[in-house]
C-alpha cells in the first residue's frame, strides 16, 4: 500500500474522529467513551478550545486539508501536507500531555486522533522526502 493511499485512509478516519469530537463539543453532548476513559473531563477542560475554537473543529479542518492535499500533485503541495500533518501531530501531542498530566484523564478519541496524525506525519514526510507522487 502506498504512502498516499495510507494518507487518504488516515485522513478519512480522522475526519470521522474529529467530526464526532466536534459534534460532542458543539452539541454539548456526552461522548461515548469506550475503554473507561475521561472524555467528558477532557472535553470540559480549557485545553478543549484554542482561542475559543473547539479543538475537534480544528482537527476537522486539518483532516479535510490533508485529504484534499493527498489528491494534489507537486512538491510544494506535498510540503504543505507535511506541514499540516506536523502541526497536527505537535498539537495532538501537546493535548495528550495536558490530558494525562494536568487533567489526569485520557480520552480514547483524542488518542485515536494522535495515532492518525502520527501516521499522517510519517506518510506525508515520506512522500515529500522520497518525491512520491
Amino acid at each position, binding site marked *: 500500500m502506498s504512502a498516499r493511499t495510507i494518507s487518504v485512509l488516515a485522513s478519512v478516519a480522522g475526519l470521522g474522529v474529529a467530526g464526532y469530537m466536534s459534534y460532542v463539543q458543539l452539541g454539548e453532548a456526552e461522548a461515548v467513551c469506550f475503554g473507561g476513559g475521561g472524555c467528558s473531563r477532557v472535553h470540559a477542560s480549557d485545553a478543549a478550545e484554542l*482561542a475559543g475554537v473547539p479543538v475537534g473543529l480544528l482537527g476537522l479542518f486539518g483532516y479535510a486539508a490533508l485529504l484534499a492535499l493527498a489528491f494534489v500533485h507537486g512538491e510544494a503541495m506535498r510540503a504543505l501536507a507535511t506541514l499540516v500533518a506536523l502541526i497536527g501531530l505537535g*498539537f495532538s501531542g501537546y493535548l495528550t500531555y495536558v490530558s494525562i498530566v494536568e487533567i489526569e484523564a485520557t480520552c480514547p478519541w483524542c488518542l485515536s486522533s494522535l495515532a492518525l496524525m502520527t501516521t499522517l506525519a510519517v506518510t506525508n514526510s515520506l512522500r515529500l522526502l522520497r518525491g512520491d507522487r
Partner: protein
Amino acid sequence: MGSRASRKAGAARQRRAVDEQAGAERRRRLVWFAGALAVAVVVVAVAIAASRGGDATQAATDGDPVPAPANTFDGIPQDGAWLGAPSASVVVEEYVDLQCVFCAQVTRTTLPSVVERHVRTGDVRMRLRVLAFLGPDSVEAARFATAAGIQDRQWEFVHAFMDRQGEENSGYVDEAFLRSVAEVSGVDADRAFAAADGDEVTQALAAAEGAAVDAGVQGTPSFRVGRDGEWELASGDALERAITDALRR
C-alpha cells in the same frame, strides 16, 4: 576504438549528470521538509502559548477580577469541612487537591448549581475531603484550607483558592498568596497560620487520605454520594444524576 571510448565517456558524463540532478532534488526535498518542520514547530509553539494564555492561571496572575466566592455559600450552615444542614438525607463528599486544574473547573461550573439546588434546600450535606498529592504547594494549601475549616470558612477558602490557582508547584503557595486568598474568603489568616501546623489539621488530612483510599478514589475531583450507608462514586459530570438518584431512593 576512439569512438567506443568516447561513447563510454559520454555515458559516464550522463550518469554523473543524472546523479547530480538526483542529488539536487534530494537536497531540495530536504530543504522543503526542514522548512515545513521549522514552521510547524513555530505554529505549535504559538498555539500552545495561546492555549495557555486563556486559562484561569493566567487570568489570576494578570490580576483579572475573580468572582467573590462568598455568595455561593451565604446563609448555608458550615461546620469544619461540612456544608449544609445536618438533617440532610444525602451526603456528598468532594475529594480535591487544591492545585488540581479540573477541580477548579468543576468548582466553577458544576458545584454552584449543586449547592443552590440541593444544599441550600437542605436535601444534601457536603463534606470536603482535601488531599495533597500533587506536590509541596498542595501540602501548604491543604494545611491552610483545613485550618480555615476550624473557622468554618473552608468552602469559601477552597473556592477562592481555586479561582486563583497558579502554575503547579511553582512555589506560588507562599504566605502572601495564602493571606490574599484568606482575605477574600473571610478567613482570619493569623489564626489559620497558627492552626495549620497543628495536630488537628494533621489528623484531618490523614483522615481525608484514609477515606480516599477506603472509597477507592483514584483521582480528583471525585465525589462520593451516600444515603443510608449506601455510597456511590461519581465524577463531576455524573454528580447531578447521582444526587438525584440518591434523593429518590
